[in-house]
């Protein structure tokens, strides 16, 4: 039987797992919950591997599997369908693989929860995997949107997992609402597609033979530009790009494995997936492409700058995620789609690893997240230290670790478009190297700066936690070799070749920018050298970090420390006015205005009747008089209207 026919099991199993764990959270034992939770992700992973093998066979063509009609009105037909092509297969592998590792990791990490909390956690996590798979598998934009909002929901639930603390709930709410803003963009884009093309199916839009968009050749038509810009609003909120990135650092309030899975490896890359999925439209809209590239590069730099001065281990990683996502969007913006996807993959490995290792550290430190209170952990937590080190090398882009190849591919594509963007991009990479090695050195080197009790408690994590770390470390180290640049090996860019059918039409439209090998080589060596220098510098600078006396920061450093006051600005610009508007509308406009008019009419009638009542004096004479006057008036009217 063809593996592709089993595709429905891939999202279905996690959903079943979610139901079992959720409903049985009071009766099932923790071990059982853990096993079920992981198994329902592991089986889809196996199926994904089979699908991947099937897809990579010679002569594979995109397959659409239709289940039932979701909405069918008149000409508008939105089926519930899955589509399988190279992009989907790759994402399936990443999502199920990383998810499985993180599920296993979670069994130990969350073991202190109550059984019902443990069940709830795995139920939410499974629900997340379901939504994410729906997003990736969906054969049209509406199904993608379902997964898209589904992951928002899970993110909301998991950030606020410890719901007794309102700070967590606020963070969850913020994440959901900011994502909702992006969802509006996505939704409007879907509507626009429906009204322009009458369909939202990838197959109808993008298939290479007679796809509605594939056959378009007008560049920058208003519809395409509008649709892509709106889609990008959605992508920007989901993937935490400027100006909608502020939810991601706050989202670190959730359990650390959640940050690793949702807020680093999978969900936040959904935006990249979406843009890559609709790459043909983007290629037809250079205006949007420029927009994507510039938002990406600005986000990469700003987030990296903020990360320089953060002291919370998870916050540093969060800003680093934002920054790396910026790189992915830069890649998409310059038309290097497969490079961006490559970076998604390597990023899933090394950032997932970083978060899990950070989780291991936090676990050992009994919940402490402030790196100024750590130090010297490397001696006691060998595995965590080594794996974290590998992840740092990968993210900083030091050859031959995975991050180097993917980032380099993006940057060289950028150079082909604009050397200026390239220089900024390399600058960002240097910042990345700096803050990552600062983090590494402050956490694992030097003297321990926490309390004695914490020091006593420090220990290496159990095997269920370290094994996922090791697996991810291996992948981070060697994962880059699937995408070797042409310079090193002919046809070395396996992943690029694998994905090329998806991006074939875009490549046709944009044209392939290839750099001369010599230039590429020089750029690569220079940037790698610079990164190494910066890394060593940061390492030495923070190796023996000790909390110094209070130093006065100059304006810029202060701004960085306070994250450029973006949260405060949003609060001032949107949240507060909205609240006061709400109060104004309720207290003044509705109560005094509209209800005032309504009640005013009532009061007017009341007042009028009270005045008219005075006429009823009870004096028979006055009644008669009034009657006569009335008669006379009628008489006169009769006389003069003839």
């Amino acid at each position: 039987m063809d593996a592709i026919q089993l595709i429905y099991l891939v999202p279905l199993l996690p959903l079943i797992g979610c139901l079992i764990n959720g409903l049985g959270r009071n009766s099932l034992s923790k071990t059982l919950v853990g096993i079920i939770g992981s198994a329902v992700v592991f089986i889809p992973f196996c199926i994904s591997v089979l699908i991947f093998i099937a897809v990579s066979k010679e002569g594979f063509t995109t397959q659409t599997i239709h289940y039932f009609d979701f909405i069918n009105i008149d000409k508008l037909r939105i089926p519930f369908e899955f589509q399988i092509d190279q992009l989907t297969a790759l994402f399936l592998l990443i999502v199920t693989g990383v998810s499985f590792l993180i599920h296993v990791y979670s069994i130990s990490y969350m073991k202190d929860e109550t059984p019902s909390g443990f069940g709830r956690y795995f139920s939410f996590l499974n629900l997340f995997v379901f939504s994410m798979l729906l997003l990736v598998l969906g054969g049209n934009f509406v199904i993608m949107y379902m997964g898209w909002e589904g992951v928002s929901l899970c993110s909301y639930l998991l950030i606020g997992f410890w719901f007794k603390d309102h700070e967590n709930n606020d963070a969850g709410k913020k994440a959901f609402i900011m994502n909702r803003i992006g969802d509006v963009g996505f939704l409007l884009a879907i509507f626009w597609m429906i009204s322009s093309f009458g369909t939202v199916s990838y197959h109808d839009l993008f298939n290479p033979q007679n796809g509605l968009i594939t056959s378009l050749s007008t560049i920058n038509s208003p519809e395409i530009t509008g649709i892509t810009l709106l889609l990008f609003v959605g992508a920007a909120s989901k993937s935490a790009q400027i100006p909608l990135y502020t939810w991601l650092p706050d989202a670190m309030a959730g359990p650390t494995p959640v940050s690793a899975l949702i807020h680093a490896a999978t969900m936040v890359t959904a935006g990249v997936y979406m843009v890559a999925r609709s790459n043909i439209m983007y290629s037809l809209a250079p205006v949007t492409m420029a927009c994507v590239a510039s938002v990406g590069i600005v986000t990469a730099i700003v987030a990296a700058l903020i990360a320089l001065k953060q002291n919370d281990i998870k916050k540093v990683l969060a800003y680093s995620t934002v920054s790396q996502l910026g790189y992915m969007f830069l890649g998409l913006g310059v038309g290097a789609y497969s490079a961006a996807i490559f970076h998604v993959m390597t990023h899933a490995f090394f950032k997932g690893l970083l978060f899990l290792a950070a989780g291991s550290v936090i676990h050992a430190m009994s919940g402490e997240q402030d790196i100024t209170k750590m130090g010297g952990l490397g001696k006691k937590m060998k595995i965590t230290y080594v794996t974290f080190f590998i992840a740092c090398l990968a993210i900083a882009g030091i050859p031959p670790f995975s991050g180097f190849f993917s980032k380099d591919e993006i940057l060289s594509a950028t150079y082909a478009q604009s050397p200026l963007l390239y220089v900024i991009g390399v600058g960002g990479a240097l910042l990345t190297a700096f803050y990552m090695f600062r983090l590494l050195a402050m956490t694992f080197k030097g003297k321990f700066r926490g309390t004695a009790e914490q020091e006593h408690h420090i220990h290496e994590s159990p095997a269920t936690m370290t094994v996922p770390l090791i697996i991810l470390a291996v992948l981070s180290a060697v994962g880059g070799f699937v995408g070797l640049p042409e310079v090193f090996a002919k046809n070395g860019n396996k992943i690029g070749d694998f994905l090329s059918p998806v991006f074939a039409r875009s490549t046709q439209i944009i044209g392939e920018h290839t750099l001369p090998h010599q230039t590429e080589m020089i750029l690569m060596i220079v940037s790698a050298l610079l990164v190494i220098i910066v890394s060593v510098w940061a390492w030495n600078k923070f190796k023996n970090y000790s909390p110094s006396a209070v130093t006065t920061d100059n304006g810029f450093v202060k701004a960085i420390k306070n994250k450029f006051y973006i949260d405060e600005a949003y609060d001032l610009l949107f949240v507060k006015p909205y609240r006061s508007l709400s109060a104004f509308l309720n207290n003044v406009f509705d109560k005094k205005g509209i209800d005032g008019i309504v009640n005013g009419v009532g009061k007017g009638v009341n007042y009028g009747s009270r005045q008219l009542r005075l006429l009823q004096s009870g004096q028979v004479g006055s009644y008669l008089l009034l009657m006569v006057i009335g008669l006379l008036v009628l008489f006169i009217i009769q006389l003069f209207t003839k």
Partner: protein
Amino acid sequence: MEIKWYIFLAIALFCIGIIGAITRRNSIIVFMCIELMLNSVNLLLVAFSKMHLAGPNAFGPAMATSGQVFVFFIMIVAAAEVSVGLAIIVMLYRNTRSIDINFLNRLKN
């Protein structure tokens, strides 16, 4: 005799009735004034009926006689009204030892 003289007489009677009804406080007098007004209307009805009977009219003789029939109606209604009204006045007198019409404003409460 021309119709206008009847009209003048009727108007005069009606005005006397109105003025009496408005200005006097003795309820018997007010009552009589109301009767006076009714009778002025009766007078007019009879006068017009006679006039229409004399010459051709749009509605034929049946319409002309109906004016006189109305008079009978009014007289009957007036009689009924008198009986009720006088009874009220008697009750008023019994209760208040007065037939001042302004006492009736107590009905208001």
